[in-house]
């Protein structure tokens, strides 16, 4: 079952990255976001980092192990927002 936050994050990803061929239903919360799975790339990672900062006030260091861990899939991303959101 997809949580409301996960649904919100799906929209954030699709809108921020202008993914035309992806609907929220296409994003499997357990599937990798980058390279395989959704197929996002390094520029997308930077964009997504900025969007998280803007929407939830979460600051992440680009290219750190921590960031890589949280950006693995939608569930880890939702966990990050749950823990660290300030906005």
């Amino acid at each position, binding site marked *: 079952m997809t949580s409301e936050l996960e649904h919100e994050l799906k929209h954030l990803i*699709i*809108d921020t990255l*202008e*993914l*035309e*061929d*992806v*609907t929220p239903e*296409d994003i499997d919360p357990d599937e990798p976001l980058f*390279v395989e799975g959704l*197929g996002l*790339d*390094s*520029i997308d990672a930077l*964009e997504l980092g900025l969007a998280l900062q803007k929407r939830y006030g979460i600051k992440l260091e680009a290219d750190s192990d921590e960031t890589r861990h949280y950006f693995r899939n939608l569930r880890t991303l939702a966990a990050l927002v749950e823990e660290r959101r300030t906005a």
Partner: protein
Amino acid sequence: MTNDAAHGPLLATPWRDRDPARAVAWQTDAYAEAPWHTLATFQADVGAWQAALDAHTESPDYWMLSTHDPYRFVCALIAAWERGDRVILPADTRPATLEALDALGAARLGDIPGGLTPSASPRTPRWGTLEAERIAVSLYTSGSTGEPQRLDKTFAQLDAELGMHAALWPLEARLTLSQVSHQHIYGLLFGILRPLCERSPFASEVCRYPETLHQWLAHWHAQTRREAVLISAPPTLERLPETLDWSAVDGVLARIHSSGAPLPRDAAEHAQRLLGAEVREVYGSSETGGIAWRVQSRDTGWTAFPDVEISADSEHQLWLRTPWLADPATWTLQADRVAVDDTRFQLLGRSDRIAKVGGKRVSLTAFDRALVELPDVRRAHCAPLPRRDGRLGAIVELTPEAVPHDHATRRRLIQTLRAALAPRFENVVLPRYWRFVKAWPRDAQGKLGAACLSRLFADLDDPRAPRWLGETLDGPQSARLTLEVPERLAYVEGHFATQPVVPGVVMVRWALHAARESLGLHGVCRDMTRIKFPLLLLPGERVTLTLDATYDSSHETAHDDTHNNAMTIRLRFTFTSQRGTHGTGTLTLTRPEGACHA
């Protein structure tokens, strides 16, 4: 200055001749009072334009000129030139294009909103001086390989090229019939300035449809027993219908010219067979003017025009030098690759186009080639879009069976294409925006130009717009558009939580918008009848929007002052997909008072 030998045919200013009865333009309207605009009427019309320009309060840096008809165009052009003014030709009449030129300090002239028109009464014109090195016109490139570029042409440049054509293929009093826009260099030179400067007549209007061509050729021949020359382009020649009785006008055309894009060989043969004249194709660009010509029924190779020097470097890139380049002494590089044999050459294709995506250099040509090698892909063009990081858009022509019709098949197709490209290209440079078409989108010049590109990707900036994937005009009042419902469409959000759909009112809005863009129908919707939405329209779905407009005389209102200006339009629309009909109905439009008929 009347010595033709000292300079070319333009600087000889043949429109100033004292030869009042000479035919300048042929009246295509068979019911016109006189069959010709003579030199006497032409000079008076130039005077009338000059009076209008004189009365303009500020003195602008340029005149921005756009007209539907060649005759009106050339009257305004000569009026401005003889005043010592410079003319800028917008490539199209989209509001954004015209506003950008307003910002340069250009005043509007002709058939565009706010355009000056000639004073009502004919006047005696004033003749000025055409200095050879002065800029005569500025035009824009089509933008098929990037942003449209402005190009300034001096009188000397135009004069040199017109002189070469006059010597090579003299018109000798034949009628010039043009099917192309005179807002671009080819139409300007071949459709208008050549006949004007060679003292040969041209048709007063542009010939838009094959039926009109047939009718005009028959009418011209019956009236004068003289020949004609057709100035055309690949999209028009490829679509000549077999159903007209072309044998009735056999021998009227002496030759056909085609330019703007290479004409497929079978289209050249098709046109030659139906129209009974050779197609002399012209290869060139807005930057360079004419470079070479060929007749494909004789040879696929190109022959450089007299005075054009050509050579190829070790990478087969074409270099050239001509008297009608901005700098006639310098060799200029062209974006085409060639195999040169003396003054003749074969075109090998475009040179690599390079773009930067997220700071990484990528060859767009390599992408195009890689895509075309994939199954079901007929043609592909990748272009950097004016979006963050220069992400690429790809336009891909597919075999009809491979065209996706819904979200799931489209998503699968994109995944397949990306997976096929992934081993050869970095992830970040892979195209992000895909447009799948059944027929290659082209403008009237036969190119996938800037206007086409911006229409294909316009939905990215407008979350309420459908994705436009091409259109076919079936005459001036009916059109078929291919559209796709973007998954991110603002209207589908929250309509039903479980099943996002396009609301019916949005389909109506799309039909109205398409009628404006594609058929030029500006009007206010007053009434809707027989509206039905039998089948839900879903995100990702591909639909055909069919529009048919009829002018309804029974609804003519009090503002009607002429017969041609009926104010009530009935617009029938249908949205259909492979699954069936999604929406249909009839809209009644009334044109707002004072609106112009496009």
